[in-house]
């Protein structure tokens, strides 16, 4: 799978690779089979955690959110009927969980938690990254929350402006303006 693959491609690739096996796991988990669900977790945790971490920019919180996503997935699994690829369904669930948390956080007007995301990214167990990648990850983590969310959803995860605007209940124009802002800030950091 190339690094630049979008969610749609991942879903396609997933289906091509072994749709029968994936579906069998899901079907078993739907009937309450926990070992099957654990396998689903192992297979998808990296992707779910990545989107949680990049949007909330807080390693500890991202772990909590990842747990929430999988618990919610377990609860809702019987409602999944295979109309979309399983990963697309799970990914959308993850994005919704993170965005709900962001909204709740905004409502509480809590001060943004000082992040340990940089340390987390450095110790994430990934293969050594080319010099530029970690700098970019750090720069994304330091973006203002809304600009960061929109940048991650659009440029990293491949969602379109109208989809993001719908999820965030924003005008498409606001969405574009925030993406412009995020890219401008990132360009300056990377210059």
């Amino acid at each position: 799978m190339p690094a630049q693959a979008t969610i749609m491609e991942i879903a396609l690739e997933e289906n091509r690779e072994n749709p029968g096996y994936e579906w069998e796991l899901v079907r078993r988990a739907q009937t309450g089979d926990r070992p099957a669900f654990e396998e689903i977790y192992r297979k998808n945790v990296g992707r779910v955690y990545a989107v949680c971490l990049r949007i909330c920019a807080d390693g500890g919180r991202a772990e909590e959110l990842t747990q929430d996503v999988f618990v919610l997935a377990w609860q809702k699994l019987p409602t999944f009927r295979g109309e979309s690829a399983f990963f697309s369904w799970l990914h959308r669930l993850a994005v919704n969980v993170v965005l709900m948390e962001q909204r709740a956080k905004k409502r509480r007007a809590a001060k943004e938690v000082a992040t340990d995301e940089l340390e987390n990214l450095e110790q994430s167990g990934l293969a050594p990254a080319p010099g530029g990648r970690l700098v970019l990850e750090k720069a994304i983590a330091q973006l203002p929350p809304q600009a960061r969310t929109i940048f991650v959803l659009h440029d990293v995860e491949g969602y379109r402006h109208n989809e993001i605007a719908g999820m965030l209940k924003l005008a498409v124009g606001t969405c574009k303006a925030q993406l412009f802002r995020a890219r401008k800030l990132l360009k300056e950091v990377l210059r």
Partner: protein
Amino acid sequence: MNCNEIEIRLNDYLDGVLSVDESVEVEKHLESCLSCRGELLRLRNLMAETAALPKELAPKRDLWPQIEGRIASTKQAASYSFFGIRLTRKAVTMAVAAAVMLVAAGIFWKIRQSDQPFWEVGRLAGSPKVGSSRLVDTGKLRVGDWLETDDSSRALISVGSIGHVEVEPGSRVQLVEARLTDHRLALQKGALEAQISAPPRLFFVETPSAVAVDMGCAYRLTVDDFGAGELEVILGWVSLVRNGRPSTSLGVVSQSNHESMVPAGAVCLIRPGVGPGTPFFKEKSLQFQQALQKLDFEKGGAAELQTILAESEASDAFTLWHLLPRVASVERGRLFDRMAELMPPPDGVTREGILQLDAEMLKLWKEDIDLKTDFPFVPQAKTITPERSRL
């Protein structure tokens, strides 16, 4: 338009959401402004780096034990089985409600039918048919409907509010989707010419070999009785993808999805079971085209590559770039060396990296090639007149 305005437009330009006219305006400015070209390059680099970020990150600890503890005390949504179909309790309730509604809705069936999404279609010549009905003047092409033209018929489809498609004689076309975010036709056989003015990835044409994804452009697409065909781009860019959607807005080939980015003035063949071939400028010699075809579809090898390399000019760098991941690894060095002669790689792109198909280097080089290649913008095909587009 000044540089500040251009800076804002560059984002839309790279995202492919500008109209053709706006894109041309931006490109004119770029031609004469070194500073904005630099800005474009920085933005492209950022987008390339972002696209190369890993999709997976590992949490610092195993989260499963806590998840397992939580789900042990969590009930799954209840579900019921109905002739083997799993339904949730909510779904069962909704199904009962739906059954009641269905009775009432049956009364209004015809009204509902008239509310189905459709595009307008007009007769240009002969007797095109929508389903089994002959099209006299104009009519409606609903989702699922087939439009057929015989040897002397032509028709014009209005693609929502974003453009037009002229369906040529001997064609069979189906309207697959008519949503604001997904305008989709299927071309089973024949030929069509599309002129679209909309953000990219809103208009798709499915064929038995590949999906043509509009990136804001005009093009002609043909498909023969065996599902093979050809795409010729008149204006802008078209992405041809074997399955689904293109990988990024940067025009980078994703091998898993076998994508070809076809610029104005270029042609790309498609074949069932293979997908899109390698795009090339249509003025290339017959020898060049035959060698490329053998390489793409007929297990061609070293001899064909030699012909292509010998006949290549600097403007063919985009063709050669598409070949990098497609040729055998033993041939890649030769290909790199010829490309480097024609269009030297930019800083940060090395021979070793390209031989190993480093995704980031491939992107950088592609961006550099796109910047330096003079892709034609002048439409050479017939233009749809106001009378013909009045649907």
